[in-house]
């Protein structure tokens, strides 16, 4: 099979998939869970339960508060203790529903059996409704509501569904484990999304460093009745799993700046999302569990784990169950080492998008002393969007917003390749992210003003 990859930039960080051989274990429920209302991209959900209510596992706790928003379900049965702001992993206050766990009683209508249901429902609207009602969001990092993505605007047609199994971040193995252990469910989930999108070809894109997963997928595809689904092997390269990069790798097409993947006929969904879609549609099970890797360079091999966890368990409870924070840990990260977020508050609750607790040692993670730029050009060689981070950094310092927009700072995907490869340890991405936010604000304001002016002109005409 021919390996493919994206055409611009990229880096090769060390693989470090230490927990790859740890089978998924089920994490027990603690006494209290905290369910965040902002677990997805878009508007935070609105709680529909009150303090003192008894809730069951899988019961709706909150409803979407807008078009881009999602349902939130209870991960446990018990009593709602409070609905109040609580600090997330970065210490920012977000409304959480606190539930005191009592037993494990599931809401009705959820199929808890292990039987594989391969028959795909034909009613597209019903399937989309199920995905929406069960709170499925993209689990690759952005947590974009899946039903919105699977329902492209009229006029745009999906030509290829890419199931993202790149898992290009070092250390993370949760996707790899579900590809091995839940192979068939993932393929059924992919087939469901394929049928929702009108039967376009479906590609299971997996990086070459996971040959067992590729084999398992190919074997399972042979045993299942679906057509037009194939496995595509990818070269190992970061950020292969970035939506835009993956589209370039698989379809040789590039999404225009500011455009959506569907504009080039692509829909990208994560492996874990495919599994969530399977459970939502075939089993009517809401998104209340996900897989999470506990790993790190300072964690002994026997303490590395892949867990199936209920969304809402505090990170500290998981860390304690896994044997506590290791002695040598200097930084704790939620997500991968390239794009993950550093955790400043271990009491924060897990959310739908939580994929790991990563412990990094001081030597692995401490940033070096910043020195002067030597104009080596490594940052622009590494940038997968073809930007010139050194230039953007300079423009940011000068406060030149026009120059920043001209040099496409708004295209930055914040993958971290520039800072990763800078020999002078210049905090390129830190600063570029700031100017990206500012420039996008300016662009939005300008677009809004143009829209208002056009409407005013229209009204004047009438």
């Amino acid at each position, binding site marked *: 099979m021919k390996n493919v990859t994206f055409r611009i930039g990229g880096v090769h960080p060390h693989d470090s998939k230490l927990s790859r051989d740890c089978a998924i274990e089920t994490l027990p429920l603690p006494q209290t869970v905290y369910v965040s209302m902002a677990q997805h991209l878009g508007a935070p959900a609105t709680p529909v339960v009150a303090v003192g209510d008894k809730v069951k596992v899988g019961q709706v706790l909150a409803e979407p508060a807008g078009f881009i928003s999602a349902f939130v379900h209870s991960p446990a049965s018990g009593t709602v203790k409070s609905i109040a702001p609580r600090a997330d992993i970065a*210490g920012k206050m977000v409304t959480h529903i606190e539930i005191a766990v009592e037993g494990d009683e599931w809401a009705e209508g959820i199929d808890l059996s292990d039987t594989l249901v391969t028959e795909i429902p034909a009613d597209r609207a019903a399937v989309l409704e199920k995905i929406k009602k069960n709170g499925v969001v993209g689990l690759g990092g952005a947590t974009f509501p899946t039903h919105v993505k699977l329902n492209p605007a009229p006029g745009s047609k999906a030509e290829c569904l890419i199931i993202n199994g790149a898992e290009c971040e070092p250390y993370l193995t949760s996707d790899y484990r579900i590809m091995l252990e839940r192979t068939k469910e993932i393929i059924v989930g992919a087939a469901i999304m394929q049928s929702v999108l009108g039967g376009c070809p479906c590609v299971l894109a997996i990086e070459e460093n996971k040959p067992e997963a590729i084999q398992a997928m190919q074997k399972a595809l042979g045993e299942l009745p679906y057509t037009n689904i194939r496995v595509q092997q990818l070269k190992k390269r970061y950020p292969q799993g970035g939506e835009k990069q993956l589209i370039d790798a698989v379809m040789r097409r590039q999404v225009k700046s500011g455009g959506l993947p569907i504009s080039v006929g692509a829909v990208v969904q994560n492996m874990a999302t495919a599994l969530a879609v399977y459970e939502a549609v075939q089993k009517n099970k809401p998104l209340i569990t996900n897989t999470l890797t506990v790993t790190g360079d300072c964690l002994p091999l026997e303490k590395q784990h892949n867990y199936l966890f209920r969304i809402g368990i505090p990170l500290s409870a998981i860390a304690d169950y896994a044997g506590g924070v290791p002695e040598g840990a200097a930084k704790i990260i939620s997500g991968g080492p390239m794009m993950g977020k*550093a955790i400043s508050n271990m009491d924060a609750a897990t959310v739908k998008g939580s994929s790991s607790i990563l412990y990094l040692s001081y030597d692995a993670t401490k940033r070096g002393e910043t020195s002067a730029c030597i104009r080596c050009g490594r940052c622009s060689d590494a940038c997968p969007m073809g930007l010139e981070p050194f230039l953007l950094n300079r423009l940011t310092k000068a406060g030149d917003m026009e120059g920043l927009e001209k040099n496409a700072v708004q295209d930055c995907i914040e993958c971290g390749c520039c800072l990763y490869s800078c020999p002078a340890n210049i905090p390129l991405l*830190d600063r570029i992210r700031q100017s990206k*936010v500012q420039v996008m604000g300016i662009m939005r304001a300008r677009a809004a003003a143009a829209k208002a002016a056009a409407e005013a002109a229209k009204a004047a005409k009438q």
Partner: protein
Amino acid sequence: MTGTIIWTIVILAGLGLLLALILFWVAKKFKVEEDPRIDEVEKVMPGANCGGCGFAGCRAFADAAVKAPNLDNHYCPVGGNEVMKKVAGILGYEVKEKAPMVAVVRCNGSCANRPATNIYDGAPSCKVKAALYSGDTGCAYGCLGCGDCVSACQFGALTMDVTTGLPVVDEQKCTACGACVKACPKSIIELRAKGPRGMRLYVSCVNKDKGPVAKKACSAACIGCGICLKTCTKGAITLEGNLAYINYELCKLCRECEAVCPTGAIHGINFPKPLDKEAVKARIAERNRKAKEAAEAAKAENKEAQQ
């Protein structure tokens, strides 16, 4: 040889003359007619081009001031009343005197008062840090200590105190241009009236958390107890979201609030004498006692009148 020298001189002189003529002609042809008063106003401006007035620079200010019908919306905080008088003189306008202002850092979360809870390792910028998380202390409101305000200050009036990790304003150098106010992502710095002989009172805290939370994060935090509010006889103090604020326009600098604040969040500076807390407290107690007596007497009178 002589011929070469002569020719060189002739050619160079001719070239010079020709270019001078061209320059003269271009300057004449493309001359922009400007109000000469713009130049005059610009001359009396401080020339810092800091943008504190809201315009791009001193020239832009002069241009706008000349075109404006009055000087109500034009004030140079750096030059202050003196410069504005001169500007008004040139333009023949009235100028409203403004009380001199100074930048005030409203956070006392020094390393000792507000222990760190984690180690920040990103770009040394408050903006970056504020966007990332709540900060490296338990207080999500206070100073982040990366010195964005210091680098924003053009007058060298701000420095980071190494021991406290907080910015310090040099009153002599501060021109109240407001650059630091804009630079601070946590809105800690405020422009306040300089006060008579520099004396002023302010709440050195912006933490809006509930008392116990704020106190746990920082021993110098305002806990929103409201004692100052009850003590103040001038109605200068307001309490909003667990945080007291002293309105400098109403404050009469009696320092009673400073004396009663249980956490020392209220700071009085440049006062000639150190605050004698006990004396002030006794004074307040005395006043309260008298007020109580008066109230009771009034009550008694009321009763008598009713009977």
